[in-house]
Structure formats: structure tokens, C-alpha cells
């Protein structure tokens, strides 16, 4: 038997099912007030006074956009109600931006670290030519804009306490989750032995260049090797020991473009120490491995759309107005998985073809001929 008090609390909270809160007691007054605002939540009225006063959908206010390099910027976001400030360094956050009336979603690594005195979060975004949203975030978004947020997620995170010796290998904007880890180590005062290899075309294009150099000076355990590919070429994994002699003994966190990850995977596998390797595929390599396209039918919603071999099934569903489940939108989190009822789809990162009956990740799959998904 539950205590009457607990039953009362549960009854009070009933209308707030599915509403995220930083502290669970908040849903008691919210649920009570919802008896008067039904079928809406009090949040639906309060957000008219302040757009951040709603936890129905997590929201954030862009307070600052600061350029890092010529094509990257750090976006500072003040989260609204319901956003839990608890996240681990290395995790990503989903950002929804409204462009021409439609919400578009993408995930970015958090570069901020959880702090008691500063609840704001930051993401650092590099504009990529095909990245519609990233370009918008770097060049188009103004402070004062309201964005939607999805709670931080991801397994690519630094454990606490950290291992004594670590290796970070990053390239381009792959530095972002690792930056959060480095900042965390520094703020906690954890003196780990860190070897960091970062690859970028030139010194000008190194995101957080000055901060990394500063860390090198102030943190005794931190060693940075900058691989500037315009003059030095790509990281040669066959000769990794030339840069970090004991790399095989170090738990490693690797983040960067797919080619780098493939090479790293290969190197660690050859040495038989794959369990030491943590990777994050932070971009979808929508390459030549795409499907041939076709007509996608969404069985339950009774909608169809024709797509090319580069459009994901997730985007296709959203285009016809279906509330598709999604999380990271880059093939990591499995939130978007749906059953394939008929036809074939292709994973456009690996080129693997899936057939009817398979459960597929819609964010990284595209049609390979006509197919039907059950949603």
C-alpha cells in the first residue's frame, strides 16, 4: 500500500505525463494547475509571457553566437523549464531550429560543462556546405531566437573518475565533445596524463586553438600534437607510436570524419585492443553508398513520398508531416528505429541493405526502391 501522501502526489501529477522536469516535485503544482487549464498545461499559457516558461517541449534562448574560426561558431543557449542541467562531458544535445515555418533538427556535442552557477549550455558548430542547419547556426541565427532542445544523450562520455592515462584523437569539429572533456578535467582539477592529437587543415582552422595552447601551458599532464594536414598530411595510424609511444595502453576517445574513424577502428583492431577505443561518428557520411531512392509509404499514417537516394527516411517522414521518433539524427542512439514492412532500404553510411522485417534506423537509411515503413 502506498502512503496516502504518495497517492495524492501521484494524482496531482497525473496530467503532466511525459513532461520533463529538472526536479520531479515541480509536476505536482503543474498537475494541479492543469486541472484548470485542461486540455492544456499551465505552461501553454505561461510561455506567452516568457517563451522559456514551458516544459511541454524543451526550449532554449540563444543568448550569444561567437565566431571561433572563419566557418565555426560557439552558440550559447539559455535553457528553459524542464531542462535538466545534468549531462556528461562528451554528450550531445538535439537542437531544433525553425526555418521558414518548419522545425529542423540536428544534434551537436555540448562544449559547455555542467556548472552550478551557470545553467547556460554551449554548442560549437562548424558550417558544412551540405549542412543546411549548421550553416544557419553559424551565419544566420541571431541572439534572442528561441530553439527547441532535446535532453543530452550519448555514450561517448568521459567517466568520472577518468582513467589515469588517456588518448584523444580528433579532427575538424570532432574536437567539440573532447573539448568538453578537457574543460571538465580542468575544472575538476583532475590531473590526468592526456595525449591529444588534433587534425585540421591549418592553424587558423583549429577550433579552440588558443584555449588548447593555454591548456598545454597550464595543465602539466596535457600534451597536444597538432596535425596540420595542408603541410603534414593526414594522421598516419601505422606510425601512431611516433607521436604517442604508449598509445596501445591508453583508453582512447576518437571523434572526427568517417575516414578517420575507419582508420582508427582498423588500427585498434590490428593491435587487438578495440575495447580501449571509444568513437563517435558525429557526421553521417552520406557518400556514394546511398540507395537508389524510390517511393516511401508510411503505412499507418497513410502517406507516401518519393525521395532520392540521399534523403533519409526520417527527413522524408517529417516532410509529409509525420511525427517521426528521433534522437541524435546521426545513427547513434537508436531512438528512430522503425520496422520495415516491405521493400528495401540502404544504410547510407555503410551501404548495408536491409530488407522487410528488419528494424531500421530511419535517420541513416534511405529508400532502395519502393518501401513501406510502419508508422
Amino acid at each position, binding site marked *: 500500500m502506498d502512503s496516502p501522501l504518495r497517492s495524492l502526489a501521484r494524482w496531482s501529477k497525473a496530467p503532466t505525463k511525459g513532461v520533463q522536469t529538472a526536479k520531479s516535485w515541480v509536476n505536482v503544482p503543474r498537475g494541479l494547475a492543469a*486541472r*484548470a*487549464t*485542461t*486540455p*492544456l498545461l499551465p505552461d*501553454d*499559457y505561461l510561455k*506567452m509571457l516568457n517563451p522559456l516558461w514551458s516544459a*511541454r*517541449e524543451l526550449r532554449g534562448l540563444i543568448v550569444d553566437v561567437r565566431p571561433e574560426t572563419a566557418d565555426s561558431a560557439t552558440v550559447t543557449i539559455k535553457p528553459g523549464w524542464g531542462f535538466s542541467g545534468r549531462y556528461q562531458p562528451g554528450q550531445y544535445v538535439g537542437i531544433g531550429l*525553425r526555418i*521558414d*515555418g*518548419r*522545425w*529542423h533538427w540536428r544534434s551537436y556535442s555540448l562544449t559547455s560543462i555542467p556548472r552550478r552557477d551557470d545553467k547556460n549550455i554551449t554548442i560549437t558548430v562548424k558550417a558544412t556546405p551540405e549542412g543546411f542547419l549548421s550553416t544557419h547556426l553559424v551565419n544566420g541565427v541571431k541572439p534572442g531566437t528561441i530553439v527547441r532542445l532535446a535532453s543530452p544523450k550519448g555514450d561517448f562520455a568521459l567517466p568520472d573518475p577518468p582513467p589515469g592515462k588517456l588518448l584523444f584523437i580528433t579532427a575538424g569539429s570532432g574536437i567539440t565533445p573532447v573539448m568538453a572533456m578537457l574543460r571538465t578535467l580542468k575544472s575538476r582539477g583532475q590531473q590526468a596524463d592526456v595525449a591529444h592529437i588534433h587534425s585540421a587543415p591549418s592553424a587558423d582552422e583549429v577550433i579552440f586553438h588558443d584555449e588548447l595552447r593555454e591548456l598545454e601551458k597550464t595543465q602539466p599532464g596535457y600534451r597536444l600534437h597538432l596535425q596540420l594536414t595542408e603541410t603534414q598530411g593526414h594522421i598516419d595510424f601505422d606510425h601512431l607510436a611516433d607521436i604517442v609511444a604508449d598509445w596501445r595502453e591508453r583508453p582512447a576517445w576518437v571523434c572526427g570524419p568517417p575516414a578517420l574513424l575507419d582508420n582508427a577502428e582498423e588500427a585498434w583492431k590490428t593491435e587487438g585492443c578495440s575495447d580501449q577505443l571509444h568513437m563517435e561518428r558525429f557526421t553521417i557520411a552520406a557518400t556514394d553508398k546511398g540507395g537508389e531512392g524510390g517511393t516511401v509509404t508510411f503505412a499507418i499514417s497513410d502517406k507516401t513520398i518519393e525521395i532520392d537516394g540521399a534523403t533519409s527516411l526520417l527527413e522524408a517522414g*517529417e*516532410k*509529409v*508531416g*509525420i*511525427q517521426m521518433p528521433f534522437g541524435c539524427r546521426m545513427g547513434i542512439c537508436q531512438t528512430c528505429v522503425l520496422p520495415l514492412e516491405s521493400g528495401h532500404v540502404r544504410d547510407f553510411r555503410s551501404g548495408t541493405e536491409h530488407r522487410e522485417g528488419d528494424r531500421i534506423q530511419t535517420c541513416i537509411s534511405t529508400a532502395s526502391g519502393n518501401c513501406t515503413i510502419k508508422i
Partner: protein
Amino acid sequence: MAITDIKEYAHLTTEDVEQLAQGLDAIRADIEESRGERDARYIRRSIQLQRALAAGGRIALFASHNKLAWLSGTAMLATAKIIENMELGHNITHGQWDWMNDPEIHSTEWEWDTTCPGVQWKHSHNFIHHKYTNIVGLDGDVGYGIMRVTRDEPWETWMLGNPIYNMLLGTLFEWGVALHHIETAKIRKKEKTWAEARKDLRVIGKKVAKQAGKDYLIFPALTRRNWKHTLKANLTANLIRNYWAYMVIFCGHFPDGAEKFTVEEFENETKGEWYLRQMLGSANFNAGKFMAFISGNLCYQIEHHLFPDLPSNRYAEIGVRVRELCDKYDLPYTTGSLGRQYMQTFWTILKLALPDKLLKATPDDARETRSELKFRVREGLRESFIDPDTGKRRGLRTALRELRSGGLAAYQTPRPAAVDRPTEYPRFDLW
């Protein structure tokens, strides 16, 4: 007996209907292509206005002992409820705004401010009514199972109460809508068991408890000593919303010219014929911008039935293009003032309370229902053709007009003139 051969009734060939469908598909494509920030702002602002009115009304009613506060509070609350049900609830659950990819304004998430549960509404309205529109025996909205609105339905004694049911439904509209999903007609015909109905009733009961709790318990209680005034105000606001919603909805399918169809028509229907059925089965009413807004743009019922999931703020411009198509294919576009449309509806309800033997017109040629047979009896009128002199098509609209005005009297079988009609029974069809 209602329309079975829609092509013949519409004076169109298979190719004509196909071309008409292409024209309508083109309208849909253009609108879908051009949906954007302007439309998104429209719905966001409508929501803001509705919530501001609701909050304003509730706040004003804290002083409900004051006459002015009572009046303004009730007016604001009634308007908020009307906007919520018509422009927001009805249209959002149709998926008109799903394209924005916003979970807060989405057909799968929206619950509307009325006693009818959104889930049931989406089945009985979005699916049943919009798919089987005006098919006698399939569309539950033809008389809602409690009224006779076409003489295609055989008369039964209980239908004598038609005008009373009509008045009750208008007054208790919210509750009628909530119970609609129960499908009393099906239970009467034993096509649905009471056990199934009880399941539906439980879902309805939960929603009713929340809605009634808010309006008749919580807000009166919150206003303490003014509770009686607040209760009356909330009741009045709900009543006003009921009458207005009833009015708008009845003027969408029951005025003269909104045709009925048989199950056979539906069985072999093409996409083009589906479009045609929606066009001929619905009726608009004339409205300015304000009236369009508070009717949830259902003054454009024809456009809504052609494109139930396109944003409501575009129905006005879609209407211009639909009228052009009607002109091209010489099809009627049924519209009129709200008063006129309602009076026609009311008259239909009134006279159909009576058994058919007291009525003159046949189900093939009555004001509220017609069929292709209407034209078959008159030789020389059936063929539609392009007039060689004017280059204009002479189709259904011209045929209807000529029959009405007697312009082609020479072709008609002689009918007794109005004055000569026997007067044993009141002849309601003279109206």
C-alpha cells in the same frame, strides 16, 4: 434515390473528370509547395489570440458579480472556445499544420477544448465523414443518426421529432459531438454491441469529467462568493459555442444543393469522382475575414472537403481557383448567405419530419437530394456539350438553371402549374 452515377449527374465524361482531378491536384501541389513562415505565423498567432482570450475571460470572471465583468468575461470565453474548436482543434487534428514538424501543433498531439475525445473524433470525423461524405448509409454525419435530413432515408415514426432533435442538438451540440462516436444508428441496427459502446463511453466519461470539472467546478470554486455567476457565465459561453458550431456545421452539408450519394456510387469511385462527390456534397456560406476566422474557415466547406489537410488560411485563395474550375466544367458551386443556407437547412429538417406521402418531391428531384434521373426524364437536356457560338460548356449548372427557370419548357413533360396543385395535404415542397 440520391446520386448513383456521378458522372452522368455532373454532365461530365470520364476524361472530363480526370482533367478536373488534375486541376485539383495542381492546386494541392501549389499550396503544399508554398507553405511557409507566413502560414506558420498565422496559426501561431491564432493560438496566441485564443489563449489570451481564454485567460482574459477567466480572469474577468473572478469579478463575475459585476455585470460588465460578467458580460466581457463570458464573451471572451465564448470566443476563445469557438476559436479553439473551429480554427484550432478541428483544423489541427485534420493534420493541416503537421508540415511544420512542431509537436505542439500536431494532429497526433492536439487535444481540443470540448467533451469529445480527440481520438474518437479523428475516427468518426476525419476518417468516416471525410471518406464517405454524404453517402447515405455510410456517412454517420447524414443526420447524425438522430434526424432525417434527406428523403433517401425511409421515414420512421420517431422522425416526427425532427425539429425537436434539431433544437436539442443545437443546444447540446458539444455533447452530441461527444456521443457521435457511439453511433446510435448502428446500435439500433444491431451492427454495434452495447459492450463496444460502453468502451467508448468510458473514454468519453474521462474527458467529460475533465471538461465539466474545469467549467462547472474548479473555476466557480476559485471565484468563491461569485461562484453562481461564474457557473452561469461558463454555461453561457459553452452554449454560445454550441449554437455557433452547430450553425456552421449544419450549413456545410444540409443546405439545398449539397447532394447525397448511394453506396453503389462509392463502390466504383475513381479519385476524380471522389473529388467531384466532395464538391457536389458540400456547401459554403459567404463570409468576410472575421466570420471566416471564427468559423474555422469552414465557410469554405467545399475547399475543406476537397483538401481536408491543407492549411485553413489558404482556403480563401483555393476557393478562387475552385470556382474557376466550376466555371470551366459548368458545375454548381453551392454558396449563399449564412441566413439563407441555414433557413434551407431548417426547412429540410422541418418537412422531413413528415412521412413521404405528405411530401411531393421524389428522392430523385427534391430540394435537398437529387439524382441523375432528374435529367433522364427530360429528353434533350441530358447531353452536355460545348456551345459552338460561345465556346462555353453547357453542363450541370446550366441544366439546373434552365430547369429551374423553365427556360426550356418546350422540352419538359408538362407539369401542373403551381396554382393547380391539389391541396389535400400541406405541400411543403412548394417552398
